[in-house]
């Protein structure tokens, strides 16, 4: 499966990733090679096989649920401590314009 330059730029847009022209060229080559290898999966018959989304073990249906009790949250200050631009108890961001 070859991937085109247009597709590379489209996918970078989906991933919110700014790429230089040189990166686009390199990724087009790398991804094409990797996807070619992945085409190998077409060889194997998976008719009737349930997809495995998670490693599952025998357990009760509610085994993963904890009691519904409110616990103290992280708190505003610790949550904001690593923000590049905190302000008035919020995360500040540049102006929002619809794409």
């Amino acid at each position: 499966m070859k991937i085109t330059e247009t597709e590379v730029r489209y996918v970078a847009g989906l991933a919110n990733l700014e790429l230089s022209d040189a990166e686009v060229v390199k990724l087009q080559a790398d991804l094409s090679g990797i996807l070619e290898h992945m085409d190998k999966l077409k060889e194997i018959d998976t008719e009737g096989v349930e997809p495995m989304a998670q490693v599952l073990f025998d357990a009760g249906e509610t085994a993963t649920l904890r009691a519904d009790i409110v616990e103290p949250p992280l708190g505003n200050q610790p949550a904001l401590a690593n923000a590049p631009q905190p302000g008035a108890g919020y995360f500040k961001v540049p102006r929002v314009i619809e794409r």
Partner: protein
Amino acid sequence: MDIPSLTIDAVREGLLARRFSAADLAAEALRFAEAENPRTAAYLHFSPERALATARRVDQRIAGGEEPGPLAGVPMAVKDVIVTQGVRTTCGSKLLAEYIPPYDATAVERLEEAGAVLIGKTNCDEFAMGSSNENSAFGPVRNPLAPDRVPGGSSGGSAAAVAQGTAVFALGSDTGGSIRQPASFCGVVGVTPTYGRVSRYGLTAFASSLDHIGPFARSVKDAATVLRVMAGRDLRDSTSAEAPVPDYSALLDGKVKGLKLGLPREYLKELTSETGALIHAAVDVYRSLGCEVREISLPATEYAIACYYIIATAEASSNLARYDGVRYTFRSKQGETLSDMYRNTRGEGFGAECKRRIMLGTYVLSAGYYDAYYLKAQKVRALIARDFARAFQEVDAIVAPVSPFPAFRLGEKVDDPIAMYLSDIYTITGSLAGIPCMSVPCGITAGGLPVGMQLLTGHFAETTMFRLADAFERTRI
């Protein structure tokens, strides 16, 4: 005090006999680790305040006649993808160069409660993506046994720290081999437990359905002790397992007679190298210990690489979406609007391998490709898991290589991502099935490089795995 030769038992004995205090040991271990670090760059930063605080707590417990904990005073290193409250956690990324976590990972919390002393945080491939540690934004780690070679990855710093002797044990994370492969390259024990055996709370997510925390140590017994302390249900990780945690190290008696071992035909047929010879020699040791060895088949193996790199990158692309310049320290100075800021932050912040995987993961999840790649890979994953389930009806454990080759030279494979991915073949299958697997040193090549043997067992059968590893280790000492 000879720091590199310390074991968990030796530290305990020394503390209880009052030959040294935990505070003295912590100070000496820190001094040694800082002095040794320029040789390998195994550590990204040290945590002296935290180390001394824990050590003093251990000393107070001992002075008060209390049980100081199963890991009292033991120097540990923690991979820098595992969060530590108040101690910088970078994930090997420029994006998190200044990130100070507001909480501790459950594994770290449990180990410190048991008395372990955090020396520092170890270098790794950016967001644990890599097989050589060359993808760290802060520079590569050198293999302590061969400084022109890689320590393996992505937990290269943790493996190097234990091999170098600056920590008695270290934590790594394993998604497709990131504990076992560096353990093999550095000649130490490395354990990937059953998926869900150790809480992932506080492990920076790479591929959530495949991520594990596990220990590195210089002996099987020490690795088993560390796993026991951190294993078990954690309400903060809904995928952590309820299954009871055995006292693994108390069950190591060297007796493995009658255990059935499987050798996967698909793994060994092409392995004619020195690595293959060392694995075969190890299998002969098991025969001499009374194990029954038979050939088994894991037919879906040849699809494992494609399957893994679809699932892992798909999950990574969504897990890494959170690094957008809003919450986690780094924000690009370029860009007038919010969406420009997102794109520039991520473009400037992520290294080449992370970008490659984000792109691949986004592609396989994108409209029109989901069924052909992601859904197909999940079905193949089920077949790989089924192969193992069938094998474990026949045998108690599987013996396999860890890596097709020993530690390679720095720079040797950086330009060929596919070759790098293909080298993960023997570790990826166990990761996809979610079964416990470990690397145990099994010999040295003519060139002086260590080689690890991989042992794999069924879900939650870590005890059998450790017993086999320990029995083999006893024949080497």
